[in-house]
């Protein structure tokens, strides 16, 4: 990047917000995956107009732009694999409006999800998507990757709450999609085009979100099963029986053992699996739903079901789930978190497939996911420095994808495609579908400057 261009960019964001030193750029070469690639430059703009100005310069000089929120993504979306500019959005944190009457919020994309959730809660409303990274992640990132979360079973995922967006396009022009009334604008749903686009089409600079009412009460339960197959059947039976829990989380035997080893809270280490189930709504309905959940669990051979009597007991039940990550870290340092997802009715088959793959490649694989979503989150516990094992991991991941697709599922329940899964995307879309995705991408971004090398812009290396 020549000095004249650097000076122009510096004039836009100010010297303090342009990082050029190697030591700083190196800190922007990663996200929560383990791929690394360094940007040529980091810019931290503070407004839409600065972003538009940056885009115009980048467009004139063919410089790639990788938009970055908190870089907590799990598919390599924020890693600048082709260098260029990393555009850090975390200075755009304003909540422009929370409207109680019409139940919507207008926010800037750099706000931390948790800060936004707290503000919405304070206003007496509710925004359900709750990705595990909500303490760090940004709303812009949530939309770009289409994040989910445990509450997705009942309430849906991020895309179900986006009414509209303001987006800066690659040439610096600014468009608004959707509207605050019902999100439905004339013509195709452009908002959905950008939702999950992973920064490959434009830069989201303003977000309009739908809000809902807070549930009046909730109840947390933990069901224990001798066999994981029975837990899986419970999930599919429950979902088809009319009562939709807020949350349906599964933990397999290996996970239970790891957590018990870590916490010593008396988890059933002999169990094949446990399900963490939560129902919410008005108190009478919750009471009825609890009875229903108990009945289904019993029918599906649960060996026991514990219903939390107090908020503290509910929190204790959640504690096990929240401690899975550190507990697994004790087994092996590198945790490769996959999110290949299947239709809920196919969960029992997917469980068997995951177990077979783990056995075939001799890998420690744990299941602790949002089972109610069909997202089992098979996690491979490995060591990134063990080259031989990592080769097996790669093969196992490919087979996980194939298994999920064969069952009518998808490569990604909530992590996005990014760089990590781009080579496999064509398996899901088909050749023509992939070409269609490419055509859309290049129609919006003909120079391929927006997060190049990801999603439909993936090109296999010549080797």
């Amino acid at each position: 990047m020549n000095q004249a261009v650097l000076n122009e960019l510096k004039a836009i964001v100010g010297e303090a917000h342009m990082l050029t030193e190697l030591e700083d750029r190196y800190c922007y070469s990663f996200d929560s995956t383990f791929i690394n690639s360094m940007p040529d430059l980091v810019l931290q703009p503070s407004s839409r107009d600065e972003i538009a100005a940056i885009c115009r310069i980048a467009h004139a000089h063919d410089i790639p732009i990788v938009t970055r929120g908190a870089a907590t993504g799990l598919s390599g979306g924020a890693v600048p694999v082709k260098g260029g500019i990393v555009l850090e959005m975390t200075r755009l944190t304003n909540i422009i409006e929370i409207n109680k009457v019409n139940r919507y919020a207008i926010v800037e994309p750099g706000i931390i999800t948790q800060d936004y959730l707290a503000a919405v809660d304070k206003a007496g409303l509710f925004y359900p998507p709750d990705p595990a990274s909500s303490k760090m992640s940004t709303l812009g990132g949530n939309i770009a990757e289409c994040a989910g979360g445990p509450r997705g079973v009942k309430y849906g995922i991020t895309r179900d709450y986006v009414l509209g967006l303001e987006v800066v396009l690659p040439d610096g022009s600014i468009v608004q999609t959707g509207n605050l009334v019902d999100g439905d604008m004339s013509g195709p749903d452009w908002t959905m085009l950008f939702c999950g686009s992973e920064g490959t089409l434009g830069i989201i600079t303003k977000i309009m979100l739908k809000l809902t009412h807070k549930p009046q009460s909730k109840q947390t339960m933990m069901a224990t099963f001798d066999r994981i197959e029975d837990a899986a059947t419970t999930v599919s039976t429950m979902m088809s029986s009319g009562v939709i829990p807020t949350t349906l989380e599964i933990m397999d035997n290996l996970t239970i053992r790891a957590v018990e080893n870590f916490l010593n809270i008396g988890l059933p280490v002999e169990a094949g699996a446990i399900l963490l189930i939560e129902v919410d709504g008005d108190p009478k309905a919750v009471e009825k739903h609890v009875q229903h959940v108990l009945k289904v669990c019993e029918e599906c051979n649960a060996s026991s079901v514990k219903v939390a009597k107090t908020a503290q007991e509910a929190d204790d039940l959640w504690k096990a789930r929240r401690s899975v990550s550190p507990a697994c870290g004790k087994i092996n340092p590198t945790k490769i978190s996959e999110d290949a997802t299947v239709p809920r009715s196919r969960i029992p088959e997917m469980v068997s497939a995951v177990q077979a793959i783990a056995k075939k490649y001799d890998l420690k694989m744990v299941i602790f996911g949002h089972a109610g979503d069909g997202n089992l989150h098979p996690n491979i516990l490995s060591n990134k420095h063990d080259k031989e094992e990592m080769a097996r991991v790669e093969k196992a991941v490919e087979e996980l994808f194939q298994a999920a697709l064969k069952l009518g599922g998808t490569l990604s329940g909530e992590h996005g495609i990014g760089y990590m899964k781009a080579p496999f995307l064509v398996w899901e879309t088909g050749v023509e579908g992939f070409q269609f995705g490419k055509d859309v991408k290049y129609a919006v971004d003909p120079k391929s400057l927006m997060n190049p090398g990801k999603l439909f812009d993936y090109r296999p290396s010549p080797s």
Partner: protein
Amino acid sequence: MSEQRGHEEWKQQLVKCIRCGTCRSVCPVFKEENNENTTARGKVQLLEGVMEGTIKLTPTLQERFNKCLLCKACVKGCPSGVRTDTLFLSARQANACENSLPLVKRLAFKGLTFRKLFDTGLRIGSVMQHVVMKKSADGRGNQARFNIPGSGLDLRRIIPPVAANTLRDIVPKKTTVANPIGRAVFFPGCMLNYIYPEAGKAVVNILNKNNWDVTIPDDLVCCGTPAFTSGDQATGRELATANLKSLSGDYDVVITACASCGAALKHEYGEILQDEHIHHNWEELSTKVLDISEFVSKYGNPALLGSLPLKITYHDACHLVRGMNVSKQPRQVFADVPELDFRNMKDADVCCGAGGTFSMAYYDLSRRINDHKLTNAEATGADYLVTGCSACRMHITDGLSQRKSNMKVMHTAELIDLAYQNGTQQKKGGK
């Protein structure tokens, strides 16, 4: 530490970091700076770069590692259990070896190893300080009259004067009681000895009040924290060794009333003395180290506490809550004091921004971090902020002066001593 083992240890810790970014949600410096080069995972990435040879131990890198409060919030928050505190200390050491430390720091640390010299220096300082320092307008402390090269002293900053009489001047080397329950050795550290001797005296009073003999050995030196946290491990080891020898008498407990001294004695000496013979002495000693609030909650007699009608809030010093696991204990004691109105503040365990030499190098930043603390403290409506760390006390007092607040600051030991004194008087008064 041998270089090879150092590398092995780095490797073991570095591989555990999965870049999840939880450190972004807890790091006080990141929250102000909003820059990935301040997060723990950013620094882990840099150290991996150092191991691979992509990143060199340059002064720029050294600066990035200095911009850390060592508050241990990232260690506590890390879901993967990465020991970022020991990792970053050893990174500072590697940087210091490569780039050396500023002359002022090197001279100061060397001075710490000669206690007599250091003592004389500070005594001269206490007399001469008015030459370069003037009393602040609100009378809470002193301000520099002009920029003192290398001192890292911002002209706005209000610091307490060096006491005319040190703790050793006002408390005998050994105070004995009739029929003692046990023998305590008190490690006052530099700040209680030279800056806040009254708080040091309160510690001795508390121990005596509960029927314990107290010794303050003559030859104790600085705990070494300023040296080894700056990367000067050699001086750190020298000081640690001298202190271990001095504390090796027949004592039941080792009492500290300074968060950093306590954490050093209890944990960090174990790290820096790994390859030394004296490590055995440390193993035995570390089990006896108690912060004064820990001592009172464990051995103190609550019946002796008199009523103290004050409105207080409490700040958890980083090296107490995360360094020594002391946070419930002072609150238990507060609950035992009749009529004491204790109000917990929001984010009580978040760093106050002092971070030792951090507040000298990054005064503006450390003020911004401190402001959140003070806003939370003031929101409780308390008249007094109580804390168990003199460095926090100094930084918080400065902050309160800067924002013209009426809130006063007190050491935990001073509060407890006051309650005991009231207990004695109220008993005499027939209450």
